[in-house]
């Protein structure tokens, strides 16, 4: 019944959003959407400099400085002030067609009465009908998780205990997923992570855990919190081993790696779930994977998670919203539609270091999920860029200006020493 209902719901929703799109395009010429704000020249530094220097009458195209060279850098600099690729990833994706949620529409205008009425109806349905249902389900799910795992924790026997704990976990996560109105499609279930392996996935929001745990049991890795989260964490540990770190332990990379390694080595333990990006990205790209997870050893099972943005924006912008308001936003969206792809397992090859392996896994995930594979570090959202990138630019430019000259200037020296 649930399936039929969700199908009908999805179709209705798509029809309404198509109508909204047509109204918008017809009536309003202002922007609702752009992948980028400004037009960018696709040329390399060499091409652009060459064009700038074309006016010069002398044909010393290489190995010379021109006053116009700096224009290239000025323009690039100002373009990045107006709009840059990295900072963009840390704010929500803009949609091509409006899905009747004002939160995804940055340039909200009053367009027409009909659209506003439909939007109003949408608000009523979302907040007054869907939201209370979801909250109830979520509360039931979480309380059952705590109670169930505590009860299972009392059992001594290994096999029965494991089976029961899996059952409890699965049940609770399924209830929680219903509480968020999540419709999940799993692909390639034959590649599902096995015991003693490590599951890596791209990270968009804390809900990723619920999404993945709906289909199998994982051992979670994370920081131990206090409060409600702490209660949940402690009760979960009673029924099957998870890996919770104290804040101080997390800084010591060796301690972390050795604990994870011990967990993986015990082949009966559940696969570990790790998000190597380290932070939430807005689900249009995959950022650099931290190599720590890939140094543990064992088999890696990559998983690609892609949310359908038309039904709700699942990205958690931790700078803008805290956890509670984020969950409230999730529960008042239309739905959360996810596609999960299980990729074939990968292991580190001979002579491949952790960074290369991490990049290989990242490309596979990005390719499968239809996301952009970016080389930027997710922690850039907080830290500054390394000096190396700047030096790289300087080097490229130097080779254009000085490249041939360096050789010329060396020759006279050798000649003078000879004579």
């Amino acid at each position, binding site marked *: 019944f649930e399936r039929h209902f969700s199908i009908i719901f999805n179709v209705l929703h798509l029809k309404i959003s198509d109508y909204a799109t047509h109204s918008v395009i017809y009536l309003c010429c*202002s*922007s609702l959407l*752009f992948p*980028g*704000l*400004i*037009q960018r020249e696709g040329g390399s530094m060499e091409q652009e400099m060459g*064009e*700038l220097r074309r*006016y010069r009458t002398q044909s010393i195209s290489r190995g*010379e*400085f*021109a*006053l*116009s*060279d*700096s*224009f*290239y*850098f*000025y*323009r*690039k*600099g*100002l*373009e*990045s*002030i*107006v*709009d*840059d*690729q*990295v*900072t963009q990833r840390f*704010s929500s994706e803009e949609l091509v067609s409006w899905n009747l949620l004002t939160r995804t529409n*940055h*340039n909200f205008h009053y367009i027409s009465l009909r659209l506003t009425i439909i939007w109003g109806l949408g608000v009523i349905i979302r907040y007054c009908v869907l939201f209370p249902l979801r909250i109830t389900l979520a509360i039931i799910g979480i309380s059952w998780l705590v109670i169930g795992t505590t009860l299972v924790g009392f059992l001594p026997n290994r096999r029965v205990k494991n089976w029961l704990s899996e059952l409890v976990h699965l049940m609770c996560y399924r209830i929680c997923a219903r509480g968020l109105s999540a419709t999940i499609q799993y692909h390639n279930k034959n590649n599902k992570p096995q015991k003693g392996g490590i599951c890596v996935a791209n990270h968009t929001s804390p809900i990723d855990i619920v999404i993945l745990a709906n289909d199998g049991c994982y051992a979670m890795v994370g920081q131990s919190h206090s409060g409600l989260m702490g209660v949940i964490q402690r009760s979960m540990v009673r029924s099957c081993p998870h890996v919770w770190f104290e804040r101080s332990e997390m800084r010591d990379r060796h301690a972390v790696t050795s604990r994870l390694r011990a967990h993986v080595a015990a082949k009966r333990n559940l696969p570990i779930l790790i998000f190597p990006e380290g932070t939430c990205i807005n689900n249009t790209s995959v950022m650099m994977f931290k190599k720590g997870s890939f140094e543990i050893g064992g088999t890696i099972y990559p998983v690609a998670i892609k949310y359908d943005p038309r039904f709700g924006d699942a990205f958690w912008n931790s700078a803008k919203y805290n956890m509670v308001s984020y969950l409230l936003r999730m529960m008042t969206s239309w739905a959360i539609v996810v596609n999960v792809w299980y990729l074939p397992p990968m292991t580190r090859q001979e002579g491949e270091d952790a960074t290369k392996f991490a990049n290989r896994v990242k490309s596979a995930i990005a390719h499968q999920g239809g996301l952009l594979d970016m080389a*930027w570090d997710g922690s*850039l959202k907080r830290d*500054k*860029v390394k000096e190396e*990138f*700047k*030096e790289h*630019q*300087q*080097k490229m*430019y*130097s080779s254009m*200006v*000085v490249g041939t*000259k*360096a050789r010329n*200037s060396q020759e006279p020296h050798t000649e003078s020493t000879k004579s």
Partner: protein
Amino acid sequence: MHIVIKLFGVPLSCPITNSMNIWFSCFLFIIVTPAHIVRLYDRFEALDKEKTGHLRPQDFGAINRLAMNPIGDRIIGAFFSPGQETVDFHSFVRILAHFRPADKKHPKDPSMPEPVNSRTSKLKFAFQLYDQDKDGKISRAELLQVLRSMLEMQVTEEQLESIADRTIQEADLDNDDAISFEEFRKSLEKVNIDHKMSIRFLR
């Protein structure tokens, strides 16, 4: 709160959701559509992490692509008038308006002051990036400074000096060992400034 832009004498109003009082002087003729201004304002707010309504040099420094730019510091410096430590939205857009593509459709009105995005104004802006002490000339030392920041460490001082000497030789017409704005303009007269120093908004 609304901002009013005078577009060829016709006021256009654009809603801004924050309570900032912004007035654009009509003689600036900032010909950017209201939607673009809202987007720039979003960008301004995104950069202004502490929500003070002003940007400081550190806020610009947080943009990674800019920090990676060899002359990033100079570009940031262009936003701040001498002695000022913050830039508000008005000045932010005013500087960015230099990079607005020139408006070919409407003929230049000689009685009006030079629009901010004309060829001369763009060249003046570029000139000021070289001429840091604002004495109206690019001296040899200033040129060396720019070269130092754009080129890598391995390039020796002698090489830098020979490049600077050659550049001044080519451009300097009155033999004062410095490049004035007129000489600068003359040496770049064939460059398609409007194309190379413009940022086009996608719609």
